[in-house]
């Protein structure tokens, strides 16, 4: 690619082309002319699809951004991307809310003498920074840069910046730093990295505490890999954890460990497996350092039956390609480092290292620090050693453990400069705020793991007077004369890419938005001698019950995404709580205290206490209490002295019933499916439903009969589909009050149903587009009817709002607009113009993304052919990380949906009602 072409690409975003139909008020009655015609291929009123990279969490999934009229209206996972290959989690879907967040900083702000923020120009703001840096240097105070995990060119620019300006770059701050893991791998293999786990190449996965589907390193990637692995017949997955996670709910088997017994379990396995095979034995000296771990002792410590322990060892021994992953809660505890070390030893002993535990493609966590770094920062702040503190794209004030008291000590820095996007509470602690552009407004790149390059390309012109971190750093450098004047950050990036990639790679990178470069294998050296000393103290001290475990959250990650309204609107997959915070406890434990859902309790440990409503969690161990960590950030959690990880567990907490209940938005009406067979018991897999007797003749379908197949074996209940549906279909986010009244608007919900043993199964429930739909004949005005392609259509404009259709729907998937839902500006810019925004008093529901069918038909008509199989992807199916949702034409016998609908696993929910749904579920097993 030539420089000229590249700059031409930039031209689109230079603001010269104002497209018709922009979101402002007057466009409704006005047509806006272009000044100059847009580039070839850009058609007014048609969508464009641009590549980008998701920056909502460190995983770095590839994105396709749908842009309509210069507005980004939908994010989708980028097919083929080495991280997510098309899938996108709910946080990624919600990232648009950050772009259009009403609290976005709109220009640089400076705190004046009264402590009030006053807008300043970029020129003034940057002058202040440069001046501040200079003064601090003169005073002999250190200038520091603290950023969140940063990769790619920006990370290089940061280094360059720090060198040139004598700014000290602190290790990057991530609450989920995986520090213990990296430290252990550093000790064992001289590789202080998070390896890339190749789940799809294993036949047995033993995961220990690692929340693969929620927050662990790269959730969408793991989900994708697991879906591939599950399709192999002999794949086994065992997950061991003390609490209850979405990952555990989906594992083939979930072992409930006593809290803090992971090390004991690993120790036992290591001893057993090492003895089982003469080859490649671990050094005697090392084995001797391990604490004695008899079967009885291990059974006592872990709470697992002896038979199961022996069987587990046998399973691992017999597996050809076993894989062990530890992390999450297992490494965020006092024995965290031992757990990681023992796991490393086991991985080495069972031959996983170098293939399924792949350091050559290590996830880019090397420059991330641990809480020790933050502790050091607070010490320096206390000693008034800090001059300018630049904080870029991270929020340590909220996410640092409460014990550090960073918020207080933070005030002692000479000049606090924040590069942030939202004007929230932590932003208001800074002296100078430099508004960051959203990743969708900026140029950049990301290297989520070694060898994977992902492009960030502006999908829209910046909404406000904001800049990307790269632009800001570059401009400061230019101001002090350390960088070529007038070189833009885009040019800087382009130069970097030109040096790094060859022509062909560059072409590929700019077109597909990502690039996978081959990586050289990293020779790993096994250093058992270093381990022995570390293992000496492995023996678990029996911790006192009850234990409070602070879990990561699939919705807010470490809390960073909790500002996105959609993620509060979507329920937590296991508890189905949407708004508010809650304490999960086992039904048996609750019964003892006579507690029911929503009853208020006080939980205390030492001086600290908190009041929370209770939510019963089937399947949770009776001695374990569970709260999502970011909802209880004030809890006094200690830091592990060795690894610098946060210990996410409090032992011996006190629980007091307070009496009374609080309003808590629990969306599920029942955690059991009451024997109604929504999800059939896998025992009865061979039963065939009876042929339906019909009163009336079935009505014909012409060319298409749209249908969907949902594979419940692949569905992990992560809620990405529901999130995608919200964004695609302009489903309003209604807020806590409406949720408390049972008025959520989600077209698609994920119902977790627990069996008596507390095992969860998930079923996505959406409009079933019944062939004989009960909702249709009861509508007095034909607002609900059946069209020739098998869609159950709801004509919003015709609807008078009797709600009879919703009453008569056995699946209860219709949603009524109780209000004229308001969207706070500029959130209305996110609206998808391909479908209408429903008014007050109108019923709405899943349309099978009829706008996408319409678009595909339009394309097919232009090319004078029928719509191809797979050409129409519903938003839910597109986003599903495991590919559980397949959509297509049931009349086409070669289509994927036809094949799945005729699978022996296929069934339809409430088939005995005779509604004949168009959604076929595939039962497990």
């Amino acid at each position, binding site marked *: 690619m030539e420089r000229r072409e590249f700059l031409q690409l930039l031209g689109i975003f230079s603001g010269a082309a104002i497209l018709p139909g922009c979101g402002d008020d007057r466009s409704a009655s006005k047509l806006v002319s272009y000044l100059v015609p847009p580039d070839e291929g850009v058609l007014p009123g048609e969508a464009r699809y641009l590549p980008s990279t998701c920056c909502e969490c460190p995983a770095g999934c590839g994105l396709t951004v749908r842009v309509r009229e210069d507005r980004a209206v939908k994010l989708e996972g980028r097919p083929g991307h080495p991280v997510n290959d098309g899938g996108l989690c709910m946080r990624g879907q919600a990232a648009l809310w950050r772009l259009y967040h009403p609290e976005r900083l709109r220009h640089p702000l400076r705190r004046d003498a009264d402590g009030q923020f006053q807008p300043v120009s970029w020129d003034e703001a940057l002058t202040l920074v440069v001046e501040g840096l200079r003064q601090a240097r003169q005073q002999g105070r250190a200038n520091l840069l603290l950023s969140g995990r940063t990769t790619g060119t920006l990370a290089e620019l940061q280094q360059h910046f720090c060198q040139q300006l004598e700014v000290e770059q602190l290790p990057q701050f991530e609450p989920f730093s995986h520090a213990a893991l990296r430290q252990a791998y550093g000790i064992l293999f001289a590789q202080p990295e998070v390896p890339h786990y190749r789940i799809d190449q294993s036949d047995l996965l033993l995961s220990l505490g690692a929340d693969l589907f929620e927050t662990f390193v790269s959730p969408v990637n793991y989900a994708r890999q697991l879906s591939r692995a599950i399709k192999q017949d002999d794949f086994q997955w065992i997950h061991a954890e003390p609490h209850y996670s979405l990952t555990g709910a989906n594992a083939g088997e979930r072992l409930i460990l006593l809290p803090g017994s992971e090390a004991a379990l690993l120790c036992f396995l290591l001893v057993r497996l090492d003895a089982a095979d003469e080859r490649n034995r671990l050094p005697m000296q090392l084995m001797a350092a391990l604490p004695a771990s008899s079967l009885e002792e291990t059974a006592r410590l872990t709470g697992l039956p002896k038979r199961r322990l022996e069987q587990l060892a046998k399973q691992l021994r017999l597996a050809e390609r076993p894989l062990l992953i530890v992390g999450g809660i297992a490494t965020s505890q006092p024995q965290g480092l031992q757990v990681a070390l023992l796991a490393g030893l086991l991985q080495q002993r069972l031959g996983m290292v170098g293939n399924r535990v792949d350091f050559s493609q290590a996830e880019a966590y090397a420059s991330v620090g641990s809480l020790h770094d933050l502790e050091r920062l607070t010490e320096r702040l206390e000693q008034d050693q800090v001059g300018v503190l630049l904080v870029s794209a991270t929020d340590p004030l909220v996410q640092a453990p409460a014990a550090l008291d960073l918020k207080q000590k933070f005030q002692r820095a000479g000049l606090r400069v924040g590069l942030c996007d939202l004007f929230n509470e932590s932003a208001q602690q800074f002296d100078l705020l430099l508004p960051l552009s959203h990743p969708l407004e900026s140029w950049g790149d990301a290297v989520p793991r070694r060898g994977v390059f992902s492009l960030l390309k502006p999908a829209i012109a910046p909404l406000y007077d904001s800049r990307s971190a790269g632009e800001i750093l570059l401009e400061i450098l230019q101001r002090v004369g350390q960088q070529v004047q007038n070189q833009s950050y885009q040019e800087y990036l382009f130069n970097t890419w030109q040096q790094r990639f060859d022509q062909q790679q560059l072409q590929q990178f700019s077109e597909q938005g990502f690039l996978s470069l081959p990586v050289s294998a990293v020779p790993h050296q096994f250093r058992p001698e270093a381990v022995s000393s570390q293992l000496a103290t492995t023996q678990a001290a029996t911790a006192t019950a009850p234990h409070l475990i602070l879990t990561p959250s699939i919705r807010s990650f470490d809390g960073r995404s909790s500002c996105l309204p959609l993620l509060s609107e979507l329920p937590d997959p296991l508890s189905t709580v949407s708004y508010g915070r809650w304490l999960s406890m086992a039904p048996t434990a609750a019964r003892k205290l006579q507690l029911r859902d929503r009853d208020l309790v006080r939980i205390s440990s030492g001086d600290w206490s908190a009041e929370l409503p209770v939510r019963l969690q089937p399947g949770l161990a009776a001695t374990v209490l569970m709260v999502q960590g970011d909802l209880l950030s004030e809890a006094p959690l200690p830091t592990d002295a060795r690894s610098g990880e946060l210990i996410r567990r409090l032992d011996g907490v006190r629980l007091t019933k307070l009496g009374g209940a609080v309003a808590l938005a629990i969306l599920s009406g029942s955690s059991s499916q009451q024997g109604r067979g929504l999800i059939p018991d896998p025992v009865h897999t061979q039963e065939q439903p009876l042929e339906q007797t019909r009163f*009336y*003749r*079935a*009505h014909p379908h012409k060319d298409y009969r749209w249908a969907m197949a949902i594979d419940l074996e692949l569905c992990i209940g992560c809620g990405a589909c529901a999130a995608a549906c919200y964004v695609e279909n302009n489903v309003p986010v209604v807020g806590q009050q409406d949720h408390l009244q049972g008025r959520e608007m989600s077209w698609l919900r994920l119902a977790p149903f627990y069996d008596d043993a507390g095992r969860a199964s998930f079923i996505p429930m959406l409009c079933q587009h019944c*062939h*004989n*739909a*009960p*909702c*249709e*004949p*009861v*509508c007095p005005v*034909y607002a*609900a*009817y*059946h*069209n020739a392609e098998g869609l159950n259509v709801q004509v919003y404009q015709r609807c008078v709002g009797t709600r009879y259709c919703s009453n008569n729907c056995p699946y209860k998937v219709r949603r009524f607009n109780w209000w004229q839902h308001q969207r706070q500006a500029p959130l209305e810019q996110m609206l998808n113009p391909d479908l209408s925004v429903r008014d007050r008093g109108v019923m709405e529901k899943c349309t099978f993304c009829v706008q996408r069918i319409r678009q595909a038909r339009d394309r097919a008509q232009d090319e004078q052919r029928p719509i191809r199989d797979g050409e129409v992807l519903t938003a839910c199916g597109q986003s599903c990380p495991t590919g559980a949702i397949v959509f297509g034409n049931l009349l086409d016998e070669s289509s994927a949906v036809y094949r799945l609908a005729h699978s022996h696993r296929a069934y339809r929910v409430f088939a005995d009602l005779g509604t*004949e749904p168009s959604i076929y579920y595939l039962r497990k097993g």
Partner: protein
Amino acid sequence: MMTQTYQYEEAEAFLSKLRELLQSGISQEQLELQLPYHLPEVEQLLELRPGPLRFFALTGGLSGFLGGLGLCIYTALSWPLITGGKPIVSLPPFLIIAYLLAVLFGSLASFAGFLLLARLPKRDNLLEPSDFGNHFVIVVKGEGQ
């Protein structure tokens, strides 16, 4: 013969006079009766026939039934939309509409027939009310009048 008016306070006296008059050969056309309430015996004496009101009711009812059925079928066919897998012309629900319209049109036609046959509203009486209160009255009109 002059027009004669007889007034009675009691029904029995009125009826016997009426019987007497009829036996004396006075034709029904010459009689004008005013009653404070409906006396079925009078109709028996005069041997009145059921009258045409029934046919109003029948016509109304039938046209309502057919009209209702026609409306349903026509509208369903004018834009055939499938609801709930039921046929476009679903007779059971259409019969409900037809039945209801039969009752409605039948009642309204009967009422209209009543107004027509009873010659109501009576304009003279609207402006200048005159009646005989609670008395039974027989007016025998003179011949040739």
